[in-house]
């Protein structure tokens, strides 16, 4: 029943995000029907058209930012929110540890994120022949989605942490809005120190993984460049590192929650 509670508390946010992704996928296919091949650049392959519009965005990494904010939004809620709604005494009187409360919320949130990320995997390959009149390979959608998910779970955990550390209605939301911006500013400056550009430089694999916009767009995994085709092995080292960051943030959230007074 704790899963049910976590689901009920996040389902409106989940449905909003799922609706937005669904709309994006359908709009991409409708645009492909009318605007593909691109009149002023007829050599662009269909995979690149879908990639730019679905996974990369008009500005490379733009859609990654959108997904990032969805993940952060899903991470909000929890006991601090309940404190404002004055339901935290009821929840805390249940025979549960606070770690279990946090873990359940995290699990439900990550599952929701997986479902949202899976929408393009299901919709684009399925609807593409019908709407755009062209096939799109399901494995390409799945590979691009895996990049979204790897960083998406990190951002979810960041949202979870802010929702635990900050009380009130607006403070966690403001923190969630500012964190990716602050992170990118920091990335750009750190990259400059090493003589590169954090936005587009893939010279360093560590920077490539740490730059969420670059990583989620999949530009570093593409071959030939700008083909929209994900090539080569999955970046397992980056996946493992990001999973460790996510788990560490969830553990931090659980530790902070255990020490809080309500």
């Amino acid at each position, binding site marked *: 029943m704790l899963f049910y*509670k976590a689901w009920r508390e996040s389902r409106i946010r989940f449905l909003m995000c799922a609706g937005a992704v669904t709309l994006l996928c359908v709009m991409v296919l409708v645009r492909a029907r009318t605007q593909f091949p691109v009149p002023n650049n007829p050599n662009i392959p269909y995979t690149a058209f879908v990639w730019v519009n679905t996974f990369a965005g008009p500005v490379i990494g733009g859609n990654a930012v959108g997904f990032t904010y969805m993940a952060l939004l899903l991470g909000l809620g929890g006991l601090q929110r309940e404190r404002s*709604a004055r*339901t935290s005494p*009821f929840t805390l009187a249940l025979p*549960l540890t606070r770690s279990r409360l946090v873990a359940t919320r995290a699990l439900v949130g990550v599952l929701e994120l997986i479902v949202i990320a899976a929408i393009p995997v299901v919709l684009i390959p399925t609807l593409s022949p019908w709407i755009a009149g062209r096939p799109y390979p399901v494995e390409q959608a799945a590979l691009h989605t895996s990049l979204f998910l790897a960083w998406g779970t990190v951002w979810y955990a960041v949202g979870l942490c802010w929702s635990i550390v900050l009380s009130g209605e607006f403070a966690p939301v403001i923190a969630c809005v500012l964190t990716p911006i602050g992170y990118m500013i920091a990335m750009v400056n750190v990259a400059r120190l090493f003589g590169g550009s954090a936005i587009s430089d893939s010279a360093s694999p560590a920077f490539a993984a740490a730059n969420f916009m670059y990583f989620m767009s999949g530009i570093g995994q593409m071959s030939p460049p700008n083909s929209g085709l994900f090539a080569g092995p999955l970046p397992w080292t980056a996946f493992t590192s990001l999973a460790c960051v996510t788990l560490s943030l969830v553990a931090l959230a659980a530790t902070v929650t255990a020490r809080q*007074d309500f």
Partner: protein
Amino acid sequence: MTQEPVIETTGLTKRYGHVEAVKQLALRVRGGRITGFLGRNGAGKSSTIKMLLGMSHPTAGTGRVLGRTIDDPRASRDLRAHVAYVAEDKQTYGYMTVVEMIAFTRSFYKDWRPDAERRLLEQFELPRSRKVKALSKGMRTKLALLLALARRPELLILDEPSEGLDPVSIEELLRSLVGATAEGTTVFFSSHQISEVERIADHVCMLDHGRLVVDASLDAIRRDYRRVDIGFAERPPDCDWPADAISSVRTNGRQVTIMARHNVDAIVERAYSAGAVSVESSAVSLRELFLDSVASATSAAGPT
């Protein structure tokens, strides 16, 4: 009926910044009884209850509830399986319906009683399919009470349970609490309503400025506590009253009023030997005792 304390605290202290909400509290609540927990707003009642249930951490001191340490997370989880709690706000999840809220709560407790659930649903006339956020304050209170009373917990802790209830519902609540005790549940409830405490409690603990100022059974209060009004012909002399027997002494002109915990005879004797012209002793109501204790504690605490 067990006589072991179900709640026991030693030096329990809670500080919020510079404010000490609970000070060195030594509380003992025995099993199988109804204990009223009295105090003014901000006296530290809710802070104490929150510490007992592991919702906030003591700044100092420790406590045990049902034999389990309150500041150990796992022990606290275990004890909460045996404790039913109704919080001051009585808020439950607004997005759930009454039936969903009951099903949700039921899933966590082995001591849930479906027969009591049905009876209370009928008695409280709760609209099953209505969302909690659409319930009136009274209805929300009734739902919170149902979620606690539909179980057979070892300990029932209620924070201002009658707040927001109409007189008929208060009557039903008080009967339910007495009934729960008859079935072996220990009831510990905080209240501002002294008349309610006086009606059903066996024991009273009064808190003021975070300190325990009275810890006595209601029988002992009725039997032993007395107000002694002493009249003098002139300004009352300085008198060495038996300190262990008195709760407070107030002087108003030629009149001295003493709140005695016991040993009234010794006080009367001392008054006459000091030249008193009239001495009158009368029983003390819980309200008088409460007001006197609060006034004494306030003057002892001094200006803050």
